[in-house]
C-alpha cells in the first residue's frame, strides 16, 4: 500500500545533506514550514542554498539556519522584512550570497523548473538593474529577459490536509510558493495539520497532486498565545 507519511520530522528530512539546494515555502508566517526548518537545523546540514520568497525574519526558520551558519546562498525576492538582521548581517560580512529575483519571476522560475521548461521570458525587470547580467531576447518586436529555471534537491512545503498518497490541500493564502516548490524538487516534503486516508479528499479540491510529493509528516498546528 502506497503510504508517503513518515513518522517524524527527523525522518522527513533524511537525505538532506550539506551543499544541497532547499526550497522553502511560505510568505511571512503564512504557509511556512517552521517545524521542518527546525528539523533541518537539528540535522546540522551546512552550505545550503535556500530558495524562498523571504530570507528569514527574527531568529527562527531560515533566520535560525543563517544564524547557525548553515546557509551559503539565498535566492529570494524580499529579504528586507522588519527583523531581518540575520540575513542582513550575514550578507554584510560576506558569509551569505544573495540572489534577488522579482517575486513573480521567482514564482515562475520555480514553476518552470518543475515543468521542465528551459526558462522564463518576462518583461519584468527590463531597463532596471534587476536585468543586469541576464540575457535579453527579442520576439515579435518586444524584448524579454531570459530568467533561468530553478530546481532543488529538497522542497519543504507547508499544507493543511494531505492523504497518504501525498495529495495536498492548502488553507487560504497558505498556498503562495508551496504548490510551485512541490513541483520543482527531487524530494518534496510536506508538513500538514491533518492526514487523511486515501479517497477522503475530493479530487476536485486537490491543490498539489500526490505525484509531486515524496513525504508527508503531520505536525500539530502551533497555537499562538
Amino acid at each position, binding site marked *: 500500500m502506497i503510504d508517503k507519511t513518515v513518522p517524524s520530522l527527523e525522518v522527513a528530512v533524511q537525505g538532506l545533506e550539506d551543499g544541497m539546494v532547499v526550497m522553502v515555502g511560505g*510568505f*511571512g*508566517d*503564512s*504557509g511556512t514550514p517552521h517545524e521542518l526548518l527546525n528539523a533541518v537545523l537539528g540535522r546540522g546540514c551546512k552550505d545550503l542554498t535556500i530558495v524562498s*520568497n523571504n530570507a528569514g525574519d527574527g531568529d527562527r526558520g531560515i533566520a535560525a539556519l543563517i544564524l547557525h551558519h548553515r546557509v551559503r546562498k539565498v535566492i*529570494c*525576492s*524580499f*529579504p*528586507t*522584512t522588519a527583523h*531581518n538582521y540575520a*540575513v*542582513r548581517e550575514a*550578507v*554584510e560580512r560576506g558569509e551569505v550570497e*544573495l540572489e*534577488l*529575483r*522579482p*517575486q*513573480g*519571476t*521567482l*514564482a*515562475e522560475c*520555480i*514553476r518552470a523548473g518543475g515543468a521542465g521548461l528551459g526558462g522564463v521570458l*518576462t*518583461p*519584468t*525587470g*527590463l*531597463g*532596471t*538593474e*534587476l536585468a543586469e547580467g541576464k540575457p535579453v531576447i527579442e520576439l515579435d518586436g518586444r524584448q524579454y529577459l531570459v530568467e533561468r529555471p530553478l530546481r532543488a534537491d529538497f522542497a519543504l512545503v507547508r499544507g*493543511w490536509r494531505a492523504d497518504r498518497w501525498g495529495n495536498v490541500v*492548502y*488553507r*487560504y*493564502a*497558505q*498556498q*503562495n*510558493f*508551496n*504548490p*510551485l516548490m512541490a513541483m520543482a524538487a527531487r524530494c518534496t516534503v510536506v508538513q500538514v495539520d491533518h492526514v487523511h486516508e486515501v479517497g477522503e479528499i475530493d479530487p476536485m479540491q486537490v*491543490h498539489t497532486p500526490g505525484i509531486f510529493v515524496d513525504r508527508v509528516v503531520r505536525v500539530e498546528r502551533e497555537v*499562538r498565545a
Partner: protein
Amino acid sequence: MSRGWSETEIARRVLADLWEGAYVNLGIGMPLRLNELLTPEMGIILHSENGILGMGPAPPPDRRDDDIVDAGKAHVTLIPGASVFHSADSFAMLRGGHLDVAVLGAYQVSMRGDLANWKRPGQRLAGVGGAADISVGARRVWVMMRHLTRDGEPRLVRECTFPLTASRVVKRVYTDMAVIEVTEHGFRLLETAPGYTAAEVAAATGAPLALPEGVGG
C-alpha cells in the same frame, strides 16, 4: 500643516478615481490606507500578490488568521466572493494585464513614468518583492506618495536618481499637494490640494508641469 491632503485624504482622492468592479492591487505602505476606506458597496476587489483576490480589512485581534495575510504580512480578511491561489497564478494576473489598477508607493517618479520604489541608491541589501512585476503588469499604475522628500527635494523628477523598478509605467501620481498625470509629454497637473496653487505645485515638482486649460502659471 492645514494645507494639502493627509494620507487618508490622498487615499480618499484615489478612491474617487476607482470604480465598481475594478480589480486593484495595493502596494505596501501608504496605499494600504485604501483598504481602511473601502466598503462592500463600492464593489472594488483587492488583489494581494501573495495569493488573494477579494481581500478585506484587518480583523479584530481575536479573529486573526495566520493564513490570511496581505503582501505586507499583516492580518487581513477575505470578503464574500474571494478566491485564493498560488504565487505563479497570482503574478499571472499582474504580468498578464488583468489587474485594472495598481496603487503603489514610490521614492521617485520621472516625467516619462519611470518608477523607483524598491531601493535607495547605494543600499546594500534591498528587496524588490512584487513591485517590479506589479508595475510592469497592471493596466494602470498609480503612485501615492508625498510630493517632497523630508529634505524638501522633489520626488517628481526629470530622471530618477534612485534605481528603477520599471520604466515608463506610471500613469498618475497622487500626493499631498496634487494629482498629476504622466502623459507622453511629461507631467500634467490635474488637481491641486486645498491650500496649494498650481504655481506652488509646479515649483515643488522637479520637471516641467503642464497646467490644465484655464489655469495660469
